[in-house]
Each structure stands twice: as structure tokens, then as C-alpha cells.
């Protein structure tokens, strides 16, 4: 390769797109490191505190797309207090000051402000794509800046963010000359939507492929929108509350029939039960279906829709579908790759919607299944063993039994054997979440067999430090480990400090680790940020000279090349 001029090598590198592969290329030799540096287009930073914007710009001066992730995963479940961090402002400011030609920004679990969005919209002439997932801190005013100032905007994709909706006119801020929109997703906005502005925007966007509406867009508007965008591939229905056979309903049905490119359907945020039947004509082409927000649609209507969806690859649904419904999925959706079954009754009121039977049926009927997230009331080892035998191809296996510590409901045994079977059979397993009654034994199995495991979520499981040690010693590819309410302590935490340099992060909350243990860890590993999060007393632990034996409520540690972060709030103590 070194006989070729740099431009040729660079051209070859263009074909290498995965971050892992590009990182590997850059390690081959100095020459390749340099070429790769200047040609890297997409940069992915899994933890915004692992590196600084300045160092990013020094290494990759020419990138066009940046992906940043902020808060740890358990922030999704309110375990990280408000104000912890993940601010994108310093990044936007640094990028704006530099000459980088940013075109795409993808943020997950970060705090974004209207000022930041305004700065972003004004600083990058070719900015095309903004994707915000689970972010917070901004309002529709920020969206208005993006709409007004980004002349070549292609994607505005807002997924499950907390956005302050000022019921403003952000949609009308898109200039009449803007015809480039490909993705428009504002399903998470709670307020009124300017329907006229929306319809005009859609009508002048011939490249529009993905449109996801919020609940303020009613049925008749949906009908008009679909009539002007028959090329749509991905549709998120907002509100669907109307009488069956009304004029709007009929218009909608007519419009839907023309949408021959429609492959993905979601939304139904407020939906009358009968509405799904309007979509039956397009079901045979659907590859992705997300009905997990349609709490008001009865299982029987869901089933009637799914019976037509023979090409489905991805299905997100509520457990109101029931085991019977999952059996229908299993016999209909032979192409299914990813399934998520979410709980409707969050307090486990005894209403057994889906059980181990549904999971077994799916595993038996869907040979291509590789990713599953399954919330249920009960499970057995026998069922998990069967699932493992039926589906050795799992890459992601996340099982959440709603009641903590719940054993096999037939034998009353822990579920160690069941999960053991899963990790033993699924040689490509990268992500695993365990639940139910579990002893150290399950972690022995995980450490022994889950050789490709990168992310593990543990809650209310294990007996002793041995459990955590099995995992740390065995899973060589572990990147993210998150543990809550499990009896693992300092011995496990401190056994192999160097392990944490090979991982992105470790989260431990309501475990047995002590302040003394964390301090020892921080001393031994200066390349780690060891954060103690203690919102209850604003970390007066330090001032009050708490004993080292004091248990730490929340510990979050991560490798970093830039040392202690400067934006930590008072309740975060970085050792």
C-alpha cells in the first residue's frame, strides 16, 4: 500500500466507513494515521466527557458529521439528577470558532439550549442534518432558528426529547425557498402545530421521505399531507380521532393507497381503535411498525393489522397484544429481526399481558430474530432454554421481568440457568439485560460464555462480589457496564483497575461500594473520572469528613483523556 500516492490510499479509505475500522486503520503506521486523520468524515464520541472539542479538532480537522452522547443510559430512568451535565454548548462554540464545515450533528442524552441551536444555525453554511435523541433544555424557539437559518436543511429529526413548546411559528420559519427537507420528525412536541405552514412545507419538499407528526395534527390534515407526499417512506401518524367512515377517513384511505413507497409506520399517539384498518392496504410492504405509543388500541385491532404485515422486520408494540397476538406475529412475520414489547401496566397489577409463552412462540416462528426487548410479568428457565435453542443468533437480548427478584414461576428457582443458556447459545451476543431472581451463578455463565458482550445491564441481582468479578474478568469486550441495587462492593470494584481503561464507563447505584473504595480507585487510576453523585445532601459528604465506610449511592466512572470536567454541579463529587 505504501507504494501508492496518498490520494490513492485516501480513496481506498473512503470505502471504510465504520468507526471501529477507521480507528484500526489509523493504528497501522504514521503515514496511515495522518491520511486517515484528514479524511475522516464522521466522528463518533460515545462519552462527551472522554475528550474535549479542542482535541477533537486537532485530530480531525476536516470532519463533516459529529455524533455525541452525554448522560449515562440510566438517565433515561430518572437515576441521574437534573443538571448533572452533558452540555453541548462548549462543543458548538468550539466548532463555530474553528473552520470545520459541519454538516451533521447527532446528539443523544445531551442538554441543548436555544442559544446553542441559534449559534449552530448561523455558524455552518452547509449544515444539513440535526438529529436529537432524548435531549432537553431547548424550546421551539431553537427550532425556529434552525428552520430560518439553515438554507440546505435536509433532516430535522427530534426523537423523544423534552422540548418546551412555545406554540410558536417555528414551522413557518422555513423559508419558501427551502425545498430540501428529507426528514421531518416532530412527534415529541406537545403543543399546537401550524397546520397551514406544515402543509405548505410538505407540498414544496419533493424529497421528503420521513414525516413524523405530533398529536396536534388531526386526521383531516393527515389526509391532505399524505395526498401531497405520496412518495413518503416513513410515516408517524399524530392524532387519529374521528368517526369511522367520516369524509376525512375516506380521503385518508384514498391517499394511503397512493403511498406505494411506505415502508415504516409509527405514532398513533392518540388513536381511536378502528383507525388501523385504513392502513391495511399498505401493510404488505411494511418493514417497520411502531405501535408502542398507541395505548388505546386494543390487542385485537393490532392483530388484525399485523396479519397483513408479512414483510415486517421491526416491530415495537405494547404488551396488550398478548401471547395470542405474539403467536400471530410468529406465524406471520417470518422476516422479523427486531421485536420490542413494552409494558402497559407499569405497576404490575397482576394483569398478565405477555408471558414466557409469547417469547417462546416468537423464537420458534421468527428465524431471523436478532434483537429483542421484552417486558413481562413472569419467566421460566425452561422457556429461556427453549428460546436459546430456537434463536442462537441474538445480538441484543434484553429481558425485563417487572417484579424484582422474581424467580422461575413454575419451579421457584433462580433464572441463572435460563440466562446461562442464552449466553452459551448466542455466540454473537453484544448486549444483554438480565432480570428476575439471579445468583452469582448467572454471572459465572456470562463471564464464561459471553465473549462478545459489550453492554450489560444488571438490576437486583447477584449475591457477592464474585458475581461482578466473573463479568469483569471474563467479558473481554465489555464497554458499558451498568448495575443497580445489587450487592457488589469495593472488592469487586478494585480487583482490576486497568479493566476500566478498556471500557467506556461503569455505573453502580445502590450497591455496596463505599466512599473509601472509590477514593482508592481514583488514586490508582488517574485516567478515570470517578464521579460520586449524591443529590440528597449536595455532597456534604466531603465537608463532613465522612468515613471511608460510608456507602456511595451513585457511582459513575469513565475513562477520559482530559481529566476532571469543569461543569459538574455541586451534587457531583469527582474524586
Amino acid at each position, binding site marked *: 500500500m505504501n507504494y501508492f500516492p496518498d490520494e490513492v490510499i485516501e480513496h481506498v479509505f473512503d470505502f471504510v466507513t465504520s468507526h471501529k475500522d477507521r480507528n484500526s486503520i489509523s493504528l497501522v503506521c504514521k503515514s496511515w494515521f495522518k491520511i486517515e486523520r484528514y479524511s475522516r468524515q464522521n466522528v463518533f464520541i460515545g462519552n462527551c466527557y472522554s475528550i474535549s472539542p479542542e482535541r477533537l479538532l486537532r485530530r480531525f480537522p476536516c470532519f463533516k458529521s459529529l455524533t455525541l452522547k452525554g448522560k449515562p443510559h440510566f438517565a433515561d430512568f430518572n*437515576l441521574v439528577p437534573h443538571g448533572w451535565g452533558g452540555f453541548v454548548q462548549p462543543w458548538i462554540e468550539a466548532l463555530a470558532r474553528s473552520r470545520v464545515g459541519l454538516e451533521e450533528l447527532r446528539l443523544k442524552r445531551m442538554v441543548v439550549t436555544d442559544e446553542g441551536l441559534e449559534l449552530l444555525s448561523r455558524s455552518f453554511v452547509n449544515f444539513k442534518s440535526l438529529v436529537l435523541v432524548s435531549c432537553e433544555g431547548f424550546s421551539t424557539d431553537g427550532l425556529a432558528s434552525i428552520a430560518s437559518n439553515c438554507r440546505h436543511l435536509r433532516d430535522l429529526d427530534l426523537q*423523544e426529547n423534552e422540548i418546551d413548546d412555545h406554540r410558536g411559528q417555528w414551522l413557518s420559519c422555513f423559508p419558501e425557498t427551502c425545498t430540501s427537507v428529507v426528514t421531518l420528525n416532530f412527534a415529541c412536541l406537545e403543543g399546537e402545530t401550524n397546520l397551514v405552514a406544515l402543509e405548505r412545507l410538505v407540498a414544496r419538499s419533493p424529497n421528503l421521505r420521513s414525516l413524523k407528526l405530533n398529536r396536534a395534527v388531526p386526521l383531516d390534515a393527515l389526509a391532505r399531507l399524505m395526498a401531497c407526499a405520496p412518495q413518503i417512506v416513513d410515516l408517524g401518524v399524530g392524532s387519529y380521532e374521528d368517526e369511522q367512515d367520516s369524509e376525512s377517513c375516506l380521503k385518508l384511505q384514498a391517499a394511503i393507497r397512493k403511498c406505494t413507497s411506505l415502508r415504516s409506520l409509527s405514532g398513533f399517539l392518540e388513536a381511536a381503535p378502528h383507525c388501523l384498518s385504513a392502513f391495511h392496504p399498505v401493510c404488505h410492504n411494511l418493514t417497520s411498525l411502531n405501535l408502542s405509543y398507541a395505548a388505546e388500541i386494543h390487542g385485537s385491532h393490532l392483530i388484525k393489522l399485523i396479519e397483513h404485515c408479512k414483510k415486517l422486520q421491526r416491530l415495537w408494540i405494547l404488551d396488550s397484544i398478548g401471547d395470542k397476538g405474539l403467536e400471530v406475529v410468529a406465524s406471520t412475520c417470518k422476516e422479523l429481526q427486531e421485536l420490542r414489547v413494552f409494558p*402497559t401496566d407499569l405497576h404490575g*397489577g397482576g394483569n398478565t399481558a405477555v408471558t414466557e409463552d409469547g417469547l417462546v412462540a416468537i423464537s420458534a416462528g421468527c428465524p431471523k430474530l436478532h434483537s429483542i426487548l421484552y417486558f413481562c410479568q413472569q419467566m421460566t428457565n425452561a422457556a429461556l432454554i427453549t428460546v436459546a435453542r430456537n434463536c442462537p443468533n441474538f445480538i441484543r437480548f434484553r429481558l425485563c421481568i417487572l417484579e*424484582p427478584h422474581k424467580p422461575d414461576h413454575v419451579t421457584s428457582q433462580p433464572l441463572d440457568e435460563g440466562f446461562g443458556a442464552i449466553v452459551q447459545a448466542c455466540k454473537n451476543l453484544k448486549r444483554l439485560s438480565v432480570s428476575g431472581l439471579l445468583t452469582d451463578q448467572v454471572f459465572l455463565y456470562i463471564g464464561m460464555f459471553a465473549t462478545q458482550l459489550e453492554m450489560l445491564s444488571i438490576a437486583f441481582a447477584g*449475591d457477592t462480589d464474585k458475581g461482578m468479578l466473573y463479568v469483569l474478568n471474563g467479558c473481554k469486550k465489555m464497554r458499558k457496564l451498568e448495575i443497580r441495587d445489587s450487592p457488589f462492593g469495593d472488592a469487586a470494584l478494585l480487583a482490576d483497575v486497568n479493566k476500566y481503561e478498556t471500557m467506556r464507563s461503569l455505573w453502580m*447505584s*445502590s450497591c455496596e461500594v463505599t466512599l473509601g473504595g472509590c477514593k482508592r480507585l481514583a488514586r490508582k487510576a488517574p485516567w478515570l473520572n470517578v464521579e460520586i453523585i449524591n443529590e440528597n445532601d449536595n455532597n456534604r459528604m466531603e465537608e463532613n469528613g465522612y468515613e471511608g465506610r460510608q456507602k456511595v449511592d451513585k457511582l459513575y466512572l469513565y475513562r477520559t483523556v482530559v481529566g476532571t470536567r469543569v461543569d459538574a454541579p455541586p451534587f457531583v463529587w469527582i474524586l
Partner: protein
Amino acid sequence: MAYEKVNELNLKDTELRLGLPGSGQVKEEQEVSCVRSNKRQHQSDNEEESTPPTKTQIVGWPPVRSYRKNNNSVVSYVKVSMDGAPYLRKIDLKTYKNYSELLKELENMFKFTIGEYSEREGYRGSGVVPTYEDKDGDWMLVGDVPWDMFPSSCKRLRIMKGSDALALDSAL
């Protein structure tokens, strides 16, 4: 009135008494974030539970995003009609903890008294029968399903009285 929780069995639920289901129950809700006891419950008395125990709420459990929790919360305002009344009312089902509170509120709203409920015979004695339309469009008797399930399945309420109610009464 506090109730005893012994080995997760809710003894109050197994008491025999006349009265609406769910009345007199106090739902305990505590935010708990702690290491749960690891005493394993291998004993078979776990399987003898006749009713699910009231769950104390654990912070961040189950692991469902708050965005999703908020979205799937029950739309709880329902219309209430009473036979012979000139206009309908609307009530928020989420504000009631059990059937007895709901019925008391309805009694106040429409100025009537309702009879005693029994599983076998419905509401006897007053000629007034509370019914509701469920998600499938069927008209059901209020009180048959556990209170927890009621708000999510009830689309509207209708208080039947007069001849309709009497016919129901005598048919049972």
C-alpha cells in the same frame, strides 16, 4: 386502615365482607431506592398468592423512559350520562382511588343513591345501575373488574335508571 402484609399476601383482600370491591383499601406508595434484601424466596408460599401484592414504587423501575410513561398514561376524562338528566357531565377517572369513591361522586353529581353491589347480583335495591362502555364497545356493569383495570378500559359511563334498570334488576 392499615393492612398487614405477611409474606407478600394481602390478607385484607381475602376478607369476606359486603361492599364494593376495592373500598376501604389504602394504597401505599413509597419511593424506595435501596438494595433489596437478597433473602431468596424459594419457599412455595410465593405460589400461593391469591392476589398480587401492592407494589411499592422503586425509583427508575421498571426501566421505561419517562417520555414513554407519560405518553401511555391513561386519558382519563370520560363522559357521564344519567337517564333523564338534561345534560352530560365529564369526570377524571384518575382522581379516584377505587369504585366506592367514584360512585359516591356520581351519587353527589346526579343526586341519587345506589344500591349495594355484589358480584353475583349487581346493584340491588335502588333501581339505579351504573354501567360503562368499554374499549370493545360493549356496555358493562361498573364494578366487575379490578379498579386498576377500570380507567384504561372505560370509555364512557351511563347511569341507568327507571324501567331499564328495573328490568335488569329483576332479570338477575
